[in-house]
């Protein structure tokens, strides 16, 4: 409301802009320009170039213009469809799991009477600052045929013979999901924790007086209060999962077969592992972009955020 009323004022002010004001405005634009130019050169120009490239096909530098043939090829490409299926499997299983875990951890760690809060917060956040490649390599050993996971399960008598964590398709997918969840839960938890700090404690007190139990408080107060941040984390997690690369590349290499292959890894394979076809690889990149845009729109709609 305030904004609409101040617009005419601003316009009239613009007319009478003095030299000094102009200089000030230019300085302001100067600051903005640095960021704008950098984004244009390093983000938008490569995007346009990649789109241009995606209309070509061929080996290495011997590219020919093929129009939308690359995009049509996507629909018949069994490997691409496998990669998309795998990626969405991770998305559907892992993102909700991680968000729920992150919420539970943050609520527990936000309790005023909890001892050693700092320690637990650090412990859960720590995986998020470790190197992806290093942790992936460690997990590859943990999940190996004679790795710690198998040894522990054998020792506890849960299994009779070592499980092929990385050599059986379903187990390999589960292993990948475990690793991503371990890596990113703490990261999302920090967002929830910080916004929980802003929730006025008196709301909970009022709820208690009205007789709400802990579960009711969680669903009726905590969740609604955290809704914007849950939306934010679910979008970033969705994007992150669609771009999943390091973990799969380093733990299973996409195998066995293509059962853990992700879209990003497929792009890598098309460009660097197989006969290089940068045109088609760019087309696959744009397929991810389109998916992310569509998913983000759905998430905005579902959570009803009108802003």
């Amino acid at each position, binding site marked *: 409301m305030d904004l609409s009323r101040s617009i005419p004022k601003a316009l009239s002010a613009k007319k009478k802009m003095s030299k000094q004001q102009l200089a000030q405005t230019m300085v302001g634009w100067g600051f903005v320009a640095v960021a704008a130019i950098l*984004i244009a050169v390093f983000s938008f120009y490569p995007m346009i170039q990649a789109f241009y490239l995606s209309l070509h096909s061929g*080996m290495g*530098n011997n590219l020919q213009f093929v129009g939308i043939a690359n995009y049509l090829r996507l629909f018949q490409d*069994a490997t691409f469809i496998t990669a998309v299926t795998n990626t969405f499997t991770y998305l559907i299983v892992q993102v909700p799991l991680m968000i729920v875990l992150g919420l539970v951890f943050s609520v527990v760690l936000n309790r005023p009477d909890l001892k050693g809060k700092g320690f637990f917060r650090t412990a859960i956040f720590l995986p998020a600052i470790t190197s992806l490649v290093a942790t992936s390599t460690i997990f590859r050993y943990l999940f190996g*045929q004679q790795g710690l996971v198998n040894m522990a399960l054998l020792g506890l008598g849960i299994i009779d013979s070592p499980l092929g964590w990385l*050599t059986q398709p379903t187990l390999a997918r589960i292993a990948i999901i475990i690793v991503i969840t371990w890596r990113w839960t703490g990261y999302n938890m920090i967002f929830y924790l910080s916004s929980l700090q802003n929730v006025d404690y008196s709301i909970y007190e009022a709820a208690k007086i009205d007789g709400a139990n802990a579960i009711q408080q969680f669903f009726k107060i905590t969740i609604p209060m955290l809704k914007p941040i849950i939306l934010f984390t679910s979008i970033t997690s969705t994007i992150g999962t669609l771009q999943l690369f390091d973990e799969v590349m380093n733990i299973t290499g996409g195998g066995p077969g293509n059962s853990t292959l992700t879209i990003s890894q497929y792009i890598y394979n098309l460009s*660097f592992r197989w006969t290089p076809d940068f045109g088609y690889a760019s087309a696959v*990149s744009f397929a991810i972009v389109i998916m992310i845009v569509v998913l983000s729109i759905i998430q*905005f709609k579902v959570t009803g955020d009108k802003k």
Partner: protein
Amino acid sequence: MKKMITAIAASVTILGLAACAGEESTGGTQVGGTQEITAWAWDPNFNIRALNLATEIFEGINPDITVNVVENAQDSIIQQLNVMMSSGTANGLPNIVLIEDYRAQVFLQAFPDMFFEMSDFIDVNEFAPYKIPMTSIDGRQYGVPFDTGATGLYVRTDILESAGLSVADVTDLDWDQLIEVGLQVKEATGLPMMTLDPSDLGIIRSMIQTTGTWYTEEDGITPFIEGNEQLKAGFEVFRRLIDEGIVLPVTDWSQFVSGFNNGDVWAVPTGNWITASIMAAEDQAGNWAVVSQPRLPGFANSVNASNLGGSSWYVLNVDGKEAAAEFLASTFGSSIELYESLLNEIGAIGTFIPALASSVMDQEVEFFGGQRIFSDFADWTQQIPQVNFGLHTYALEDILAVAMQSYLNGQDLDQVLRDAQAQANNQLN
């Protein structure tokens, strides 16, 4: 709406994947009278040591040129070459690079202007003939052939003995016979025969090459999967190895190496470049022998010799190419002395024919119980059936790895191979 734009902007950062460049250092730099050239290779125990030995020899030939040896992972070399060559900039490219034979034709055909022709620097007839088709285009020689990928079956003699068997029982077998031996040893000692990575079909590649067959037809381009009886037989052997329970599943190189270094398996059927890694387990000295690679069962033309891996040196068409060509020509291209020290120091067998006649080849290797392993490998090298690797080895192999997974899960093999053929036709058109 603004948030949406931010989300979109964030999402397209994936495109940055196509723009990741490597370190910036120019190929050849001229400092005063001396010139420095850069060489890239992978595997510190093998290729890097070979380069260092060559550098030592070259110092005595032309001290004005110094060679800067840089170790990079093979994947990273391929990635950087692809990125830099397709960007059309010579900045950051090395002068000399090692490329695996399976990939060489892809680079030579995708970036023909980026390689420097070596025809005038080496004598093609002095190298093993099977290396030439993959290192040249239309009779123009680009690569300096390096190591042979001749395969053998490395076996633990002590474990065989404890199962009441001897080296003679594993010599010149086919895969079915070897599996029978594997079952006997497993029963007697409980040890699996070999490690196997279910995603790595390298072993099938070496099986079908014993019959002179490949994933492609002779043109090196047309996928040959459906109706490829040799490939089908290879798939059946692979599955039998798993079903009989005589393999230790692994998923990467280090698990593969620790499998035999720790004594968890008793056989390693692979290329001779593994010799240095086998010899790393000093406590197993005297307990190893190498016998010929098993044949593919059911094919009369299958021989007890095959190839796995092997690579060659290339000079890139950047500043300093003449110096780089001179370096390769006077070391890997002609120096018998170099090949002798390669054998003595790292057990590397080259494909330079004059060096194969050297007396060093006949030496007895203590680690292998005094066996003359190098002359054995040289004999097997002569028998390797020639195939045209063509362009798509790894692309086809990844398609086949998926097919293998379906087959292991119980699908009909003919159907699986038919699907793989359709996928290959679609992907490689």
